[in-house]
């Protein structure tokens, strides 16, 4: 499931030091649960994104352990503190070993 995986991230471009900002993330992924069967009745093996992390300038904001009950095209919304200008790094870990990431810079207003 490494093909066509595309992360989308929404982060304000600017913030004031100490601001709490809302972050939204979405990534295209089937999140094959391992519970389904194909047309011949054979189980379709599980293939999901099992972990999502968000860090800012090397410090962690959120680290999520994800299970097959997370919907297709996983979505998260959460709050982050921005102590200074810098970069948010978002990382998704696929069962198949692939790692997808996205980076967003925030400037001080």
């Amino acid at each position, binding site marked *: 499931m490494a093909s066509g995986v595309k992360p989308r991230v929404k982060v304000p471009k600017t913030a004031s030091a100490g601001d709490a900002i809302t972050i939204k993330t979405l990534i295209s992924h089937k999140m094959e649960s391992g519970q389904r069967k194909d047309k011949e009745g054979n189980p379709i093996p599980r293939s999901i994104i099992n972990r999502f992390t968000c860090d800012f300038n090397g410090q962690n904001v*959120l680290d999520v*352990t994800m299970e097959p*009950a*997370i919907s297709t095209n996983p979505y998260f919304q*959460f*709050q*982050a503190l921005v102590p200074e200008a810098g970069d948010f790094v978002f990382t998704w870990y696929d069962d198949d070993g692939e790692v997808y990431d996205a980076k967003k810079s925030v400037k001080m207003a």
Partner: protein
Amino acid sequence: MEFSRRDTFALGLGAAALAFLPMRAYASATDDLIAEFTGGADMAETGITLTAPEIAENGNTVPISVAAPGAVSILILASGNPTPPVATFNFGPLAAAQEASTRIRLAGTQDVIAVAKMADGTFARATSIVKVTIGGCGG
């Protein structure tokens, strides 16, 4: 082999008990997961908010939100799913609030459970029942 009325009644009870087993298996799996997370500690009923729709239009995509001020992590379980774990949110030092929203899969009408582990080592729990509808044509 002949069955008396009483035998048949007993058989019926057995069947009912059997039919009930999977539910109990799920319930205990959920209880086990909670015990694993809390180490068997008591859970407060306050300090955590779980927001989920009363009725979900489609079990494939059910929006939920959790908030537990002061939590270090929040475990989400769907008690009626084939595998109850949904997600664990671990909040880092730069989390501005211990809250998050996501979209989850629910196999049917069931309790969604959120358990928060607070910074002081205590736990809090919230439960929300979500009715998952089976569509007419939409489902």
